[in-house]
């Protein structure tokens, strides 16, 4: 586990010594800020609901862009061979990379906290849903990071990793909004699968263990899948 810490520090540093982090954070803030403020005054309420409701649609584009290089690049330049022949476990590598992504997502969300402070000056802000929203955003971001890491492990081409990650994340965001495509018998199941649905629950300020468990399972399954794929390559 101590090994995971070194990987984590290295990966996080990598984001911020290269332009990736700044570009991704800028794009995220621009898009989310624009969507938020373009309707904020029209609604005439001190609420961050529109901001949070956009996240399941923005994250599928932003997060795979952050995760796509994690394994694809290592496989492409072959550095994975050097990494894996150091005294580390594959699981340490995956956990280190995953935690770096989670921290990145949290740092990316940090500036948007100013929206909440700002909105609280404009009116009577209900802090429950806001805190729930930020917690949900980090959970959603973590789950999508895990999926992005899984996608990155499947290929040595970063663009493919990005597209695969985006498609899976987007499907999870939208599946509970497209229920009319599915037969009635599996509806509850499909509904439960949707990440958007669980995120909205938490963003309402209701912290339900089912939603937490959902995100933790997605993280676990995706990371375990990544481990299996990397293991298969040996």
């Amino acid at each position: 586990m101590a090994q995971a810490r070194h990987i984590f520090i290295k990966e996080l540093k990598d984001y911020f010594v290269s332009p990736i982090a700044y570009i991704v954070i800028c794009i995220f803030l621009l898009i989310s800020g624009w969507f938020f403020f373009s309707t904020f005054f029209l609604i005439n309420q001190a609420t961050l609901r529109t901001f949070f409701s956009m996240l399941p649609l923005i994250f599928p584009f932003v997060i795979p862009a952050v995760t796509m290089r994690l394994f694809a690049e290592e496989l492409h330049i072959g550095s994975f061979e050097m990494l894996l022949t150091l005294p580390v476990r594959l699981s340490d590598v995956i956990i280190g990379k995953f935690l770096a992504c989670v921290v990145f997502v949290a740092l990316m969300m940090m500036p948007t906290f100013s929206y909440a402070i700002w909105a609280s000056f404009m009116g009577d802000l209900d802090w429950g849903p806001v805190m729930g929203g930020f917690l949900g955003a980090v959970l959603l971001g973590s789950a999508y990071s895990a999926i992005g890491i899984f996608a990155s492990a499947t290929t040595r081409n970063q663009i493919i990793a990005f597209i695969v990650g985006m498609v899976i994340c987007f499907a999870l965001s939208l599946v509970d909004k497209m229920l009319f495509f599915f037969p009635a018998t599996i509806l509850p199941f499909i509904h439960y699968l949707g990440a958007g649905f669980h995120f909205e629950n938490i963003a309402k300020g209701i912290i339900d263990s089912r939603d937490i468990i959902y995100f933790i399972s997605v993280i676990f399954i995706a990371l375990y899948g990544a481990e299996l794929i990397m293991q298969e390559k040996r």
Partner: protein
Amino acid sequence: MIHVEKLTKYYGELCAVNNIDLDIRKGEIMGLLGPNGAGKTTTLRMLTGYLEPSSGSIRVKDFTTAQDMLSIKRLMGYLPESAPLYHNMLVYDYLEYVAGIRGLDGQKKAERIKTMVELCGLKGIMHKTIGELSKGLKQRVGLAHAMLDDPEILVLDEPTSGLDPNQIVEIRDIIRSIGKDKTIVISTHILSEAEATCDRIVIIDKGGIVADGSTEMLKMGAGQGKTIYLTLKDTGLTQAREVISVVKGVSHIHEEPSAADELRLKLTISTPDDPREAIYRAIKATDWTLLELHQEGKSLEKIFRELTQEA
């Protein structure tokens, strides 16, 4: 030190390494030779734990790869072919990162990094991005990566491939200077390199071992194909043929160009025994003058080609 038993690796249907048995002793510098695609890299990758064998076992000291891979990795430093390092990191950052993973910290870490800088000549490039370095410098950083923790076993996959002659000599010197008290496994397809650095050479082809021994042993082989050069004076070709062809072991006599009054012969030897004494005695019994008698083993090149070219 390293004990390999019935090691086999399949890539799908393709058998890359087939039933290899190998014992590498402590302090040995072993050269793994073979043509491209013979299974050198695959063997090294299994040895270092990057690949898992399809069957067979590897034991390093008392650890097996199946159970104690982590302990084995701690004993080993590995430099893969062409040193695939992270392009975007600084040399210093990279070495520090590796030191961290290898569990070095504080005083020890600074010390080891300093030693590596001196040994591998990294002084001027510590604050350069790895992606900017030339191939030779990258290779040196790779060597520093492999030796950082002062591992007992060093595995180097084609450490000099793609380098210019000066760089090759530099890398070879580094390897030799650390090779005194380490077990080193080097793969290469450059024969002169193996000859210059290794105590022992294992030639593999199509996934199997075709020869194993010290450079001298391999060259002398089983004796077959050894050649002896003779330069004589005061005699003719037919006379010399008569006398020498009866010596046991001499299978073929061939005249070589020489100075006007000298006779130069090339004798092909077909027995493992050393016939030089007998040849000398046969000549001593005559009144010829013996100017030169010298024996040549097969060149490593020739052995290599013979062993790896039977289609």
